[in-house]
C-alpha cells in the first residue's frame, strides 16, 4: 500500500469502519511510513478535540431546569391512566355498564387533574417553585419533584463511583478555577471552604482526621458537579455540588439516598444541591453534610452565585 492509497482510507480507518484485513494493510503501511503516522495522529487528535469542544461547550449544554421540568412532565404523562387503559382492564361480561362508569371516572379524573394543573409547572418554563409545590397540593407533582431529586442524588453517586473511585469519566475534569470562569464564580476556592470546615470539626490529631485528596469540576451523564474528594477512616468521600432549580429545602427533600453500597446525604443550599457520597453509614455522611453546609452556604453567598 502506498501513501496515496493510505490517505484514501484514513477517514474510514479513523471511524473504525474498515474490514479487519484492510486495517492490517493500513497498519503495515504505518509501520514504515512516518509521514502517514503523523498525519493519522494529527487527524485523530483533531477528532478528539472536536468531540471534547462540542460536548463541553456551555452553549451546547442542556439547561438543567428545562431538563428537570421535561422529565417531570413526561413522568406525569406516562403514569397517568388513559381512557383506553382503564377500559382494557375491565374486560368482563358487564363491560358495557363498567364502560359507562369508566367514562364518568375518566371525566372526573380529567376535571380534578385540570384543577391541580393551574400552577406553572411546565417543561417549557421549568419553574417548579416551592410555592407551586405547596399551593398546588398536587401529590403527583411533589412525588415527581422527589423523583427528580432522587435522580440527581443517583447521578451524584454515579459521579463518585466513576470519578473518585474508578477515574473512569468519559470527559476529563477541569480545575475549579477554570470552572469558576465558565460555570460559576462559586467554584473558586470552594475546596478551601469545605476543607477548612472539616479540619475544624475533625482536628488533625484525632482518629477521625479528614485528608483532602483532590478537587475538580467534572461531567457525569450530562450533569456537571463541583467535586471535592476526601478520605476519612480509610473511606473515600465525595462532596458534590450542582446547580439545581428543584424547590427549596423541605424535610421531604433532605432525604438520604442509597445506591448499592453507597450512601448520599443531600441538601439544598440556595440554587445548589450539595451531596456527601461515600460507603460510610448514613449517620457518618450526615455529620459531614451538617458540618460543611454552613460553610458552603457562606461561600456561595459571598461569591454572589
Amino acid at each position, binding site marked *: 500500500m502506498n501513501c496515496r492509497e493510505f490517505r484514501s482510507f484514513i477517514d474510514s480507518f479513523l471511524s473504525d469502519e474498515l474490514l479487519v484485513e484492510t486495517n492490517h494493510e493500513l497498519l503495515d503501511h504505518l509501520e514504515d511510513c512516518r509521514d502517514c503516522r503523523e498525519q493519522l495522529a*494529527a487527524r485523530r487528535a483533531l477528532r478528539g478535540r472536536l468531540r471534547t*469542544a462540542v460536548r463541553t461547550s456551555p452553549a451546547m449544554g442542556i439547561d438543567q431546569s428545562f431538563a428537570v421540568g421535561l422529565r417531570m412532565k413526561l413522568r406525569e404523562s*406516562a403514569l397517568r391512566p388513559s381512557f383506553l387503559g382503564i377500559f382494557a382492564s375491565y374486560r368482563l361480561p358487564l363491560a358495557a355498564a363498567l364502560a359507562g362508569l369508566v367514562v364518568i371516572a375518566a371525566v372526573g379524573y380529567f376535571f380534578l387533574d385540570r384543577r391541580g394543573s393551574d400552577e406553572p409547572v411546565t417543561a417549557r418554563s421549568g419553574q417548579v417553585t416551592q410555592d407551586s409545590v405547596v399551593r398546588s397540593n398536587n401529590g403527583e407533582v411533589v412525588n415527581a419533584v422527589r423523583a427528580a431529586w432522587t435522580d440527581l442524588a443517583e447521578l451524584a453517586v454515579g459521579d463518585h463511583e466513576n470519578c473518585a473511585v474508578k477515574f473512569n469519566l468519559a470527559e476529563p475534569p477541569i480545575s475549579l478555577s477554570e470552572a469558576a470562569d465558565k460555570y460559576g464564580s462559586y467554584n473558586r476556592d470552594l475546596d478551601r471552604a469545605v476543607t477548612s470546615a472539616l479540619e475544624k470539626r475533625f482536628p488533625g490529631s484525632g482518629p477521625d482526621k479528614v485528608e483532602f485528596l483532590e478537587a475538580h469540576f467534572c461531567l457525569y451523564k*450530562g450533569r456537571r458537579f463541583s467535586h471535592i474528594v476526601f478520605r476519612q477512616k480509610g473511606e473515600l468521600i465525595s462532596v458534590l455540588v450542582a446547580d439545581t432549580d428543584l424547590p427549596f429545602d423541605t424535610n421531604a427533600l433532605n432525604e438520604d439516598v442509597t445506591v448499592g453500597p453507597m450512601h448520599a446525604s443531600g441538601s439544598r443550599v440556595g440554587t445548589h444541591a450539595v451531596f456527601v457520597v461515600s460507603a460510610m453509614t448514613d449517620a457518618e455522611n450526615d455529620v459531614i453534610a451538617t458540618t460543611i453546609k454552613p460553610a458552603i452556604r457562606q461561600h456561595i453567598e459571598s461569591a454572589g452565585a
Partner: protein
Amino acid sequence: MFGSKKGREKGWAIFEAEALPLMPDVFRVAKWLARDAAVAEDMTQETYAQALKSFHRYTPDTNCKAWLLTILYRVNGKRRMKLGQLKLVEDTEEQIAETVAFEPSIPQHLTDDEIINAINRVPKKFSEIVMLTDVEDFAYKEVAEMLEIPIGTVMSRLHRGRRLLRQELAGPAREYGIASNE
C-alpha cells in the same frame, strides 16, 4: 400509553433508564440543528413526547440514541417545512471539490471556541455528518438510516467535512504564523 398501572410503571422505568439519560445528547444535536436554545428545547420536548408515545415500537437494549435522533430529525424536518426551508438546493459537492486545492496541516494551538467556530463555518450538509460520527459516535450505517441517505454519501460527505474543517482551522493558524501548506 403503557396500559395497566403496573404496565405504566414498568414502561416508565424502562423509558427512564434508556431514553432520559440521553436528553443532553438529543438537546446538543437539536441545538446544532436549530442554532437557537429555545427552539432546541422545543424540538427536544417534541422528540421526547413522540418517543414516549411510540415507545412500544422501540426494542429495549438496542440503540436508543439512534432511535431518538431519528425522531429528532423528523421533528426538525417538519419544523423546516413549516418555515419553508425545505427546498432543492444546488449540489455544492462538485464546487467544493474544485476549491479545496491543498491539504492543510492541522494546527496545534487552537482553543475550543476556534474549533467550534470552524465546524460552524463548514456547510451544514458536511458538518452534520462530522457531528454525528465524530461527536455523537454513530456508525456510517446509523447515520445513513437517520438521514435517509446512502452509506456512500455519508462517507463522501464525512471525508469532505473533515477536510473543510482542517481548511477552516488552517485560517486561524496562519494568523498565528504557525501553519504552512503541505
